[in-house]
Each structure stands twice: as C-alpha cells, then as structure tokens.
C-alpha cells in the first residue's frame, strides 16, 4: 500500500520526549512502506544539525540519534523549515542524512492530496 505520511515536530531538547516519540512514529510509517517526511519547525530545526541529538536519550526509548539514523536509512526525509533555520543561525553544511532545508511550497506540495499529518 503506497501513500504518504507526515510527522510535524516543533521541539528538540526543549522537549526530548516529544522529539523522540515523533521519530518513533515516523519510523513506524517509513517501515510500513509510507513515503514519510518529518517536518521540523520552530525549535525542532535544531535536530537537523549533525551531533545535536547525540546525547538525547529518553527512558524507555532508543537513543534519538539511532531513531533518526534508522529513519534516514529507511528512506525517510526530513524537511527543515527555512525561516526557523535561518532565525537560529544554524549551519547548512552540517545537516543530518535525509535532511533538506525547505520553504512552505515544498511542504504544501507534499501535503497535497490528503496526506495525513501528525503533530508533536
């Protein structure tokens, strides 16, 4: 069964529990043959930087870096909100695998045709 799935994530270390569960669910979608995007905006864009998630480990869950690596390996894509990224002065040359800086049009295009989206 083909189809798309979007997980919207607005936090990073400010709420590591949400950030972790978002990637657990994204992995469920990607591993269930859905074309899956995690959309990072607001503080969530910090997760786009290599090394940032390395020390995030929520009790009861796999380390966030492992979850993100697994997501990228399954072909999952990470859309990083361009204005949120620029506002925080992050490094375009230091993106994690699968991540791309995008504007609204790219997200809206992906969400077209009734693509479901889950927010954390």
């Amino acid at each position, binding site marked *: *069964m083909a189809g798309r799935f979007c997980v919207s994530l607005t936090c990073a270390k400010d709420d590591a529990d949400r950030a972790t569960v978002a*990637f*657990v*669910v*994204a*992995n*469920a979608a*990607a*591993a*269930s*043959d*859905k074309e899956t995007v995690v959309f990072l905006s607001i503080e969530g864009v910090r997760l786009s930087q290599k090394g940032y998630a390395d020390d995030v480990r929520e009790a009861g869950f*796999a380390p966030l870096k492992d*979850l993100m690596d*697994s997501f990228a390996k*399954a072909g999952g894509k990470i859309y990083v909100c361009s204005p949120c990224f620029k506002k925080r002065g992050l490094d375009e040359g230091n993106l994690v695998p699968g991540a791309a800086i995008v504007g609204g049009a790219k997200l809206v295009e992906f969400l077209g045709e009734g693509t479901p989206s889950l927010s954390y």
Partner: protein
Amino acid sequence: MKMNASAEPSECDVSCDVGDAGCGDLAVELKARMSSLRPGQVLNVTARDPGAPEDIPAWCRLTGHGLLAARHPEYRIQKKEN
C-alpha cells in the same frame, strides 16, 4: 516456487525474536527481517510488546505481506510476491 501458506511452521521458515520492540521499533524490525526473505517464504516472529496483537496485523495490511497466524507473542508472516 511452491507457496508455503500453512499456519504450521516448516523447515523453510526463518525465525526471529524481536523481544519487547514496539511501535516504530517493531515496524523497523519487521521490515528489516522481511527484506532478507524470498517471496513466499515465512517469517516466524516472537514479539512481546503489548501492542503487537494490533500492530502486526496492521503492518501486514499496510505492506501487503500475509499474516498466516497470530497467537501472541507468536506470529507467522509470509512475504508477498514482488
């Protein structure tokens, strides 16, 4: 290829124990294990997560693999034809 559609184990099956993996971790485990099987081959999975009785049938419906038997924590999944 002769299809093994039996609910009973056969010597051609592959067995694995995914332990307590649940939710996304369970789906990732299932996808990884199934990728190494041939079409028609059967994976015997032991999955102890309490969500598995709902998640494994759902994963099979989503991916098109056949759920031959489900008796928690034991599941038999047949890889779909390409």
